[in-house]
């Protein structure tokens, strides 16, 4: 098993202003990796360099073993892209669109199977322009996966989805990952999405990767101090402690049984993320 993505010392500036400033990144085959970061952090630039849309200033990049800047057309047989904000193929039907893009690959998935996978079987003969925003995104996903990619790029895939559509989408991504061992690079603004899907999360800010870890361990989250909250004399009380069990036992003794309003929380992924990018909470 090789790594699907290897990046060392990646730099890219626009008009002298660095957008990506020394990014190192490795994504293993079969992994779901989420890249998080505020707008302007260098997320999109990094991903577009990996996708072969943009040229880097310096650094080493290997995607499926090739340099995206010099890769032959065949390299794209292994790459699937789910673009943001695309509104192309508006006058084509869903099935025509997927069939057309299947035609670019040597070994595409059967079109019916793809429509089933993204849940658009019933919309197959509808024109793409008549679909809702969420359905339109599923067409983009269908185009992204029809060529059986080894590596799938998902750029903020669930922006504008309602909660139910997001859950369905997550299930689809997990299915791709589990059944086909597709490597997935996801960029997202939603931390719950990263937490639900990603094996590992990378936080990028000001063009640098600040931390890479599993969602549970990111930024020392698992070993971070917990907060014990309860209500005493009608007032909410909080205690930050590295021994929440002990603290709770003491409280239980003090209250002689039930502790009113008891809650023990670890910092959320969002707390850790905001800490990392240095944003005030």
């Amino acid at each position, binding site marked *: 098993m090789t790594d699907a993505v290897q990046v060392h010392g990646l730099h890219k500036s626009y008009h002298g202003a660095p957008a990506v400033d020394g990014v190192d990144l490795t994504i293993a085959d079969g992994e779901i990796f989420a890249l998080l970061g505020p707008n302007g952090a260098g997320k999109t630039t990094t991903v577009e360099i990996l996708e072969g849309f943009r040229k880097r200033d310096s650094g080493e990049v290997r995607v499926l073993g090739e340099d995206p800047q010099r890769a032959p057309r065949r390299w794209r047989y292994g790459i699937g892209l789910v673009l943001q904000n695309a509104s192309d193929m508006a006058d084509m039907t869903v099935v*025509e669109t997927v069939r057309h893009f299947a035609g670019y690959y040597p070994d595409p998935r059967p079109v019916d199977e793809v429509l089933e996978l993204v849940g658009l079987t019933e919309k197959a003969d509808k024109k793409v322009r008549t679909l809702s925003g969420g359905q339109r995104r599923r067409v983009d996903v269908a185009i992204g996966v029809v060529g059986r990619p080894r590596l799938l790029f998902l750029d903020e895939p669930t922006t504008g989805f309602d909660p139910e559509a997001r859950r369905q989408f997550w299930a689809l991504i997990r299915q791709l990952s589990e*059944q086909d*061992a597709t490597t997935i690079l996801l960029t997202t603004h939603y931390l719950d999405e990263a937490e639900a899907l990603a094996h590992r999360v990378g936080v990028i800010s000001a063009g640098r990767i600040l931390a890479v870890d599993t969602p549970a361990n990111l930024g020392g989250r698992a070993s971070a101090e917990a907060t014990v909250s309860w209500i005493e004399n009608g007032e909410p009380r909080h205690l930050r402690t590295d021994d929440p069990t002990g603290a709770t036992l003491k409280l239980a003794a003090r209250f002689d049984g039930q502790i009113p309003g008891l809650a023990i929380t670890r910092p959320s992924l969002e707390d850790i993320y905001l800490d990392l990018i240095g944003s005030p909470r």
Partner: protein
Amino acid sequence: MTALTTETPENPTSTPRTVREPSVWRLCLSRGGVELRQFFRERTAVIFTFALPVVLLILLGAIFDKQMAATGIPSSQLLAAGMIAAGIGSTCFVNLATSITSDREDGTLKRLRGVPMPPIAYFVGKIILVLVTAVVEVAIVLAIATIFYDLPLPTDVGRWVTFAWVFLLGVTGCSLLGTAMSSVPRSVRAAAPIVNLPFLILQFVSGIFIVPITTLPQVLQQIGAVFPLKWMAQGFRSVFLPDAVAGMEPAGVWEHGRIALVLAAWCLGGLILCLTTFRWQGRKDG
């Protein structure tokens, strides 16, 4: 084509599936299919494209309803020949510029760069689109002209040969210029005026609406003579009108050599413009 053999990952024991790399030729045709379907499903654009020359031809034919004194040829026949050139300008230059601007804005170009498509397939798709629409356009104008204005269709091969090379050079030149023009507007909304206005002016100075072209002020004729439309119109007049009408051209003759030269020069210039200005990405994508 290269044949590869793979095993299905889900079921490695099943018989290996033979997979073939898609041929470039098939992808070109596939792009052409998408272009044609997208175009003909956009009803308003279809009606506008094909109805405009017809409406103009009928209106102008009614307004300038007189015989040319020297030749006895009705001016509507001169209009019809010019309208064929204008129809090619409209389908190849205006429509292509608008459609590529739209492809850049709606994500078509970015998407296609992200799939294993040979770039030639995109351009061949557009060529198929402009050829089909230009042929339909010319057929409609010719039908109107023969039915309403008794425009005689030439019977000798030589004239059809002239028609073929004027058509091909005109379509090629206008398409290349349309492709280059597509880089100018910042958005599809801006594309309509930015592309249509110069085309409208060009139609006036090229003697499309006002016939014969010699009735235009000298300076406008000279401006028109710089651009391909005037030469296309002159070429089509030489196909459909009797040689006596050549006397009404600025030079007094059909000037086939010069027509070919000017149109070929525009093809070359348009090609250079395309190669130097064509962008797969929109401005906001950097």
